[in-house]
């Protein structure tokens, strides 16, 4: 079988397929998205689904495992918070067939709202945990995870980080070896977690974990690499092991942990007794350090290794005093900031542009998606954003808080269509149920855009490649009992429509929903429809008032006193700039 250079995410998908996975579900989230995308290449063998959210994804996979087929759920770190509810109890019921949940953590917040270290979940939820360090281990550990899960009847967390997910290295591929489907026999005492059933299952969980500690200590996934001496013993896991190998070199001895819950206590004790000094290298929290210190072993770890951001080999070497900071060049010029921006033609730009002129009357709350970029200058489009769904639900409390301080601004919550299905609907229901005086804006661009255009329940396709009936957000919103007078559907690029809807919403009292509906400009059918259409500036008519430039479009700039279409190929001809020109200096051509 051949070898390929693939990413950690691709290798997890490959390993899962080889291990005989039959059901896999996920909600897209960087850096985990490519796991399910790559599993969908095997859809003759594997049922794949983008679920509404991570909890649903977890439950789809849990149902499959209990039912007797190997299954996988994948999510980014914050997604595991959403899936935590079923996860804690699946540890009690056990899994029947192998069950693996992948958490893709994001130290450094490359694409996330926090840097949470999900290794604690394994300890807390009493699941087994494996931590691969590179793509080859991603494949191997995924296969091992299914075997361990099935053998010990326990959910396995496969914990990755951005650099493991998105780094590519050589992987030896194998063939699919799917175990037979296990029979599903109704067993309420094991799988229906009523209190009377849960109590004895908890006892089983504790016994199982105690037994698994010895399995961990003797597992080949944990290994000792003796160096040329035993002065320093390094304990590490995941990508941090790679940084440690560079920093400490071949002299040091290593305990390379791949199986980190339950911790291999006897192996750790034995390793530490044979080295003079124990150094722990780990990104994020002191998870290994906590376990080592609990054994009464002295070690150096988070007292020198940063808890914030990503590590790298140099940071580790500097932390332990193994190297000097290298000399670097410095130039007497600096690169201007290049923040990520809303694309040319992005429908969200129309929403934020209309919001900006009404900002004094509105206290906006944002959410997670492409539209998060609207928080940045020049739009400064919202002042708070917590997590998926909070953009709507938190408006209820914020409105109460503003009222308590006689702040008359109207609270506006915004979120996207994929987020609506993920966890916006419950917030909507509570806004209606509480008759809150807030505006809810649904920035509906007809796709999960930020993570690269995945389908969601509102689209007409699914990951299996089938055509399905789209779930209509409007029907759901109307079903809450909100009358048509309190719902507007607008094209956000059309500033007359968009502005009028916002003005009506500000003037109204009680819940008001604005659906800002226009598909993402990068969707293939939209790009095809826009081909050749673009805006041009008539420099004779342009007086240089700069109103159009305020739209902050990456295709537009101002040079030598005139507006200029800076990137004609990028311009989609959306016409937002054109609407700002009172002199008719911008025209749309090609349409």
């Amino acid at each position, binding site marked *: 079988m051949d070898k390929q250079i693939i990413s950690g995410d691709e290798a997890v998908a490959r390993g899962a397929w080889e291990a005989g996975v039959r059901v896999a579900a996920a909600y897209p989230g960087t850096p985990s998205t490519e796991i399910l995308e790559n599993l969908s290449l095997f859809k003759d063998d594997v049922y794949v689904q983008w679920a509404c959210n991570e909890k649903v994804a977890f439950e789809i996979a849990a149902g499959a495992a209990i039912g007797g087929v190997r299954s996988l759920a994948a999510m980014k770190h914050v997604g595991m918070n959403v899936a935590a509810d079923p996860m804690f109890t699946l540890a009690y019921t056990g899994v029947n067939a192998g069950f693996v949940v992948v958490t893709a953590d994001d130290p450094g917040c490359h694409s996330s709202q926090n840097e949470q270290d999900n290794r604690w979940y394994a300890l807390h939820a009493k699941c087994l945990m494996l931590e691969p360090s590179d793509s080859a281990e991603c494949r191997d550990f995924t296969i091992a995870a299914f075997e361990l899960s099935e053998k010990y009847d326990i959910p396995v967390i496969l914990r990755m980080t951005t650099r493991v997910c998105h780094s590519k290295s050589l992987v030896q591929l194998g063939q699919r070896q799917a175990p037979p489907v296990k029979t599903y026999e109704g067993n309420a005492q094991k799988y229906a977690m009523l209190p009377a059933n849960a109590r004895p299952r908890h006892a089983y969980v504790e016994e199982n974990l105690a037994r698994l500690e010895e399995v961990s200590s003797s597992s080949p996934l944990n290994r000792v690499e003796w160096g040329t001496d035993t002065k320093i013993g390094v304990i590490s896991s995941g990508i941090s092991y790679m940084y440690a190998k560079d920093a400490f070199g071949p002299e040091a001895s290593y305990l390379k942990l791949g199986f980190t819950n339950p911790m291999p206590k006897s192996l750790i004790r034995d390793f530490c007794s044979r080295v003079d000094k124990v150094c722990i290298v780990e990104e994020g929290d002191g998870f290994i350090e906590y376990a080592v210190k609990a054994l009464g072993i002295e070690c150096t770890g988070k007292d020198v290794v940063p808890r914030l951001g990503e590590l790298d080999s140099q*940071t580790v070497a500097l932390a332990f005093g193994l190297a000097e900071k290298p000399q670097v060049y410095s130039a007497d010029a600096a690169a201007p900031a290049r923040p990520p921006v809303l694309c040319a033609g992005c429908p969200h730009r129309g929403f934020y542009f209309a919001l900006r002129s009404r900002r004094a009357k509105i206290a906006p709350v944002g959410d997670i998606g492409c539209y998060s970029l609207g928080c940045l200058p020049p739009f400064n489009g919202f002042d708070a954003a917590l997590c998926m769904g909070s953009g709507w639900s938190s408006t209820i409390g914020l409105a109460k808080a503003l009222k308590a301080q006689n702040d008359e601004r109207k609270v506006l919550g915004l979120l996207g269509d994929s987020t609506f299905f993920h966890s916006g609907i419950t917030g909507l229901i509570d806004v209606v149920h509480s008759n809150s005086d807030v505006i809810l804006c649904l920035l509906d661009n007809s796709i999960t855009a930020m993570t690269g255009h995945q389908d969601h329940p509102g689209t007409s396709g699914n990951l299996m490649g089938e055509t399905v009936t789209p779930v209509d957000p409007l029907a759901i919103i109307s079903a809450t009992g909100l009358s048509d007078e309190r719902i507007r559907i607008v094209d956000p690029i059309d500033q007359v429509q968009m502005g009028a809807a916002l003005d009506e919403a500000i003037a109204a009292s009680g819940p008001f929903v604005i659906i800002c509906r226009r598909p993402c400009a990068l969707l293939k059918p939209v790009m095809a429809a826009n081909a050749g259409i673009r805006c041009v500036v008539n420099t004779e008519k342009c007086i240089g008032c700069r109103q159009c430039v305020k739209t902050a479009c990456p295709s537009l700039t101002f040079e030598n006193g005139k507006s200029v279409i800076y990137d004609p190929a990028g311009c989609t001809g959306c016409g937002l700039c054109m609407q700002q020109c009172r002199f008719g200096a911008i025209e749309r051509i090609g349409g």
Partner: protein
Amino acid sequence: MKTTGILLTGVGGQGIILISKILTIGLADMGFEVKMSEIHGMSQRGGTVNTQLKYGQRVFSPTIGPGEADMIVSFEKSEALRALPYLKKGGTIVTDEKEIFSMPVLTGTAEYPHRALEALELAGCSVKRVPAAAIAEELGNGKVQNIVLLGALVKALGFSGSADWLAILRSNVPQKLVDINISAYEKGAAL
């Protein structure tokens, strides 16, 4: 452990990930262990995009720290400047002269450093200028800028004859664009 690190940088949409992939395959064919690390997500929306590539007999970390890049390949002039702190003393910068204005420059809140490359030379770096975007435009497709840079980069590494780069290229670009990509590679390699 002696490894070589190449940092590729530019703006989202310039095809950096594709040439990193081709380079990775070629270096692996040459018998090196290769690791490549990329960052996706928010940065793709017009932000700076980096990939990091390391090769040698044995490679552990896939990433490159400050002062550790043997070579910086920049698809955009000001991005070469931004990546400068990652260049190893004595390392080389291979950069396009293409300018892409970021939002603060477009809206007039920041100045573009038009003399970025002169500043890099003044700082004492070895700078190899490659007009890849301009060559790609001449070839009739600005998008092959990345492959022109690939040709220049492979030559700068001294690896032009060490792997079958054209074959790797053929199997990693769309069938109908093979010819223009090969022309782009050859133009880059001839610089």
